[in-house]
């Protein structure tokens, strides 16, 4: 009975932020699994839908954009170029959209039981990563069909691009999900921001066009957006070896030496800011929801 005396008195409800998420990773796993299960409940094809939808999208890009619009003339193998950017943006969009709503959406639980609330935005990002995987598979098939040759640096670039956007999603997700408790405008703001995200990164067009118009300084500003760097890293990883003569245009100068470290630092700073804001605001979640 007295063994309880060895455990110290602690203040309940004071968490340690993302560290607690790691400690409760089994719960995180169950939350992620729940969302994935619920997504395809009651559908016959189930998880196959996750492969069919991006595959159809890819074929449409290939035919409509590459052949009909003739974009292949400007950018070699445009379908892979477009798709490799889009899968990454899809991941980011879904992750941040769901993360931003996650606290309000789970208010029933947050008001009743104490658990590290960071779990919810982080789980949203994990769920989106699980949905990203089938799209990556479709992308890789598209790459292989069009003569892709993986290189160690290319694979590293792919991982780095994903890591940058995952960190950014968690950071922004923490920030906007906690602000959303107080101002529901937050989720609308996120939707607007995500709509812009596709266009302020070289998903549809090439970075060279931006450089030409903006000059060095503003191009530097453009490049400090981690989403831009993520998309460029994906182009390097999946598209550059399939593009024939355009390969030289795959990545802006100093992508690895300068822009990747910048993107990592910016994402880490956003993550720190998100965590800081979340911890400031979470104290009153239960009464504000």
């Amino acid at each position: 009975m007295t063994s309880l005396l060895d455990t110290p008195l602690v203040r309940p409800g004071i968490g340690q932020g993302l560290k607690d998420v790691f400690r409760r990773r089994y719960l995180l796993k169950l939350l992620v699994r729940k969302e994935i299960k619920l997504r395809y409940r009651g559908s016959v094809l189930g998880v196959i839908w996750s492969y069919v939808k991006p595959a159809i999208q890819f074929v449409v890009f290939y035919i409509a954009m590459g052949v009909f619009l003739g974009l292949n003339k400007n950018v070699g193998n445009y379908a892979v170029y477009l798709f490799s950017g889009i899968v990454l943006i899809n991941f980011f969009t879904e992750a941040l959209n769901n993360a931003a709503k996650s606290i309000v959406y789970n208010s029933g639980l947050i008001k009743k039981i104490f658990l590290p609330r960071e779990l919810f935005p982080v789980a949203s990002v994990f769920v989106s990563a699980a949905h990203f995987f089938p799209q990556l598979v479709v992308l890789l098939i598209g790459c292989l069909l069009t003569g892709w040759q993986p290189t160690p640096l290319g694979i590293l670039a792919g991982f780095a691009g994903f890591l940058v956007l995952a960190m950014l999603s968690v950071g922004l997700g923490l920030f906007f999900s906690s602000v959303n408790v107080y101002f529901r405008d937050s989720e609308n703001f996120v939707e607007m921001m995500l709509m812009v995200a596709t266009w302020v990164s070289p998903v549809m067009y090439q970075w060279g066009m931006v450089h030409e118009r903006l000059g060095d300084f503003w191009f530097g500003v453009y490049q400090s957006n981690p989403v831009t760097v993520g998309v460029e890293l994906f182009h390097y990883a999946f598209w550059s070896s399939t593009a024939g003569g355009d390969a030289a245009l795959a990545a802006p100068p100093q992508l690895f030496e300068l822009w990747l470290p910048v993107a990592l630092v910016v994402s880490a700073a956003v993550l720190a800011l998100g965590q800081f804001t979340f911890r400031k605001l979470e104290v009153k979640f239960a009464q504000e929801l």
Partner: protein
Amino acid sequence: MSELSPVTVEIKGISKQFVLRHTRSIKEALIWFLKGRKGDLSARFHALRDVSLDIRQGETVALLGFNGSGKSTLLKHISGVMTPDEGTVRTRGRVAGLIEVGAGFHPDLSGRDNVYLNAAILGMSEAQIKERFDSIVEFAEIGEFIDTEVRFYSSGMYLRLAFSVAVHSDPEVFLVDEILAVGDEPFQKKCLEKIQELVDAGQTLVVVSHDLDLVQRVCSRGILLEHGRVLKDGPSHDVVEFLRSRTKG
């Protein structure tokens, strides 16, 4: 309970104010700000005022009072869902329980998935859940329906499963908000026996309930709250009698 038992819940001078905000948009807040912050965007009310108490291991405590007296708010402070504006709450060991039956249950998941999820929410590890799974299902008398989606359960089955997960989570401090009224007579009896068993094993129990007869049976200590203050703290029998006499008068 002996004075030597370790304190499991220590509450020192806590106060809690609720701000009832009328606005939920940045636009309104901005206009209010630009107009020189005239008027108040919000109304305030005191849910708890300078509450202090210690609860020791093995005690069975009932928080009593009318609606709006601050009982549930106090329970939420012990669980950590809320933190006080002033004063401190400290607890020893794992605190868990049912603030509301079935919080965290998802209707589209099977009973099995819900047991795992809910048990993990209440702080059980994977190994603990696996070890106690059969016992949870058996106690809830769910049997073959464990792999059925919870939305097909009767409300009784739903409550039994939720309660069963909670009693098996085996925390040092067990919090229960108005759920001793779960299920039918035999199941309620079984729940009370289980709770008694846990208390005998040294668990601390804190209950919020309006069922005064039940409170007298289960709890040894009663704490009466009124307008967020502790009005009376003593043996549950005395406190219940006091509350009854006030209601009549």
